[in-house]
């Protein structure tokens, strides 16, 4: 989970506007991160898995092997943007959403479980690919817990917004 503090959340309108400005051109890939065993920590996976039904070649989750997917996208000869979706500690109310541009990703952590998004964004950048992170503030990250209602609503909103974006850009 990302740790970002003192960042105001985006309204639905802001969010739509910001999403539209990030991928200037080319395909949009969505990569969902997190851990569905820890309640809202799985928000990114839920978004990606929902999108995968409509965009099976452009939406991936942690279950697909994120690092390998990033390498594949990075080395493709095409313009593209990768949007990572993950739970993030924004210091805001549960379900708040924030879009973070690649240059603003400050995460430095790599764990034994996954390579840091900042490293993956750097690898993409080295291949002239754009990237951004959408963070969702979790309400609960209890082990084997349930996804909270505000996060469930935010997941639904993100699926809708990203579907619109991918439909518009992936043709």
């Amino acid at each position, binding site marked *: 989970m990302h740790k970002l503090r003192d960042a105001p959340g985006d309204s639905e309108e802001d969010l739509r506007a910001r999403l539209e400005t990030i991928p200037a051109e080319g395909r949009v890939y969505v990569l969902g991160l997190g*851990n569905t*065993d820890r309640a809202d920590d799985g928000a990114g996976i839920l978004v990606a898995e929902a999108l995968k039904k409509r965009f099976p070649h452009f939406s991936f989750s*942690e*279950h*697909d*092997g994120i*690092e*390998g997917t*990033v*390498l594949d996208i990075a080395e493709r000869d095409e313009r593209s943007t990768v949007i990572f979706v993950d739970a993030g500690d924004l210091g805001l109310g549960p379900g708040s959403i924030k879009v973070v541009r690649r240059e603003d990703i400050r995460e*430095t*952590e*790599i*764990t*034994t*479980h996954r*390579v*840091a998004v*900042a*490293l993956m964004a*750097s*690898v993409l950048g*080295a291949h002239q690919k754009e990237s951004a992170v959408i963070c969702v503030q979790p309400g609960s990250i209890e*082990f*084997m817990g349930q996804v909270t209602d505000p996060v469930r609503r935010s997941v639904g909103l993100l699926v809708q917004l990203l579907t619109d974006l991918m439909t518009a850009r992936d043709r």
Partner: protein
Amino acid sequence: MKELNVEALARVEGDGGITVTLDGKKVKSVTLDVHEGPRLIEQLVRGLTPADDLNVIPRICAICTLSHRYAAIRGLEKALGIVPPEKAQLTRELMMLGENVESNSLHTFLLALPDFLGYPSAIAMLNDYGDDVKRALRLKKFGNHVMAVTSGRIVHGENPILGGFGRYPGRKELEEIKLKAHELVPDAVRDVELFASLEYPKYSEADMVFMSVNAPKKQYGYAGESILISNGKEANVEDYKKLTNERVVSHSFAKRSLYQDKTFTVGANARMINMGKRLDGQAADLFKEHFDERWTKNPLLNNLAQAIEMLWSLEHIPDMVDRVLALDNPPIEKPTRENGSGTGAVEAPRGTLYHHYEIKNGLIDVADIITPTAQNLDDIEKHMKLTAERMLAEDKGDEEVRLGLEMVARAYDPCISCATHLVTLKRI
């Protein structure tokens, strides 16, 4: 009295920190403080059927998920009197080779290497060592792929079950794995050469005791029925409690282990010390070239051991694929009893992992898991204390000492999340 803290230990899994208490230049204590909350997973599985247990217990860890699953399968099959078919055993070995490549590539390159090259992280390394980072990511991707093909998916695959596999991997996907493994061997050789060229500081050096499973048929491997100890002794895995002697300490949510009142080490270096002579191929050649007396004293050499081991795993994948493909898919073996007990021991990338079960009337009555990190914690503290003492005696500054301590802790490739599964502890 002064304290030197590493509040949040970066580049390890889970929430832990290091506290060094100093009296002038004298080091009073060094503790690896584990803050990660306990998960009580052994209690969660009580009363479940063994099949349901298998779907819960690997959730303890998303990186050693297959090691946990395999250790649980070994313990449960023993308890239930199941003898798995040869094809199941070989496919399980193949999945362990994949997990080893996946985990060792991530740890050596992205977690440990930045320290040795003077970078704060792999991200900072990218400009100067971009090819190395991408090589690590390619190896990790391949390890993940082997895990997915054998177990059903990358994380928490459910194909390996009691008595066999829900679905055996197909010929086409196995042959692709074989080809890719061949292709990646030169990458793994380059990795060994890189890690062999690093300078390993001597501050942490001291006599060590190493434990690992004894792979059958005098081969190198990641599972076995007995435990090798570097003092020349050998013990049955059912005696795991006598080897690990778990206890609770006040500064940590993870249990600790001592063998005959001494700290001990599990992990790739332990496997190399105990089974290194059994290596073959280029891994054997490189082990012979680079192994020396320091391996028995310096925990930092675990990084080089992991690089050599990753090469061995890659070299063995094609042979394992051939052996799997040579056999027809067997039926799933069923339990022959409803009551019994058994212990499974496997080598997770970061060391020996025990799963012990007692089954009563077909349901889990007792589950006991001892993770590699929990076994290593006392050893980590011992070598960190030596490091702090020796660095301070040389008038090294606080930042240098902090880095020295972090390098020691990271060398063990600790997984703190996994180590804090059990204990309910009152802080004093």
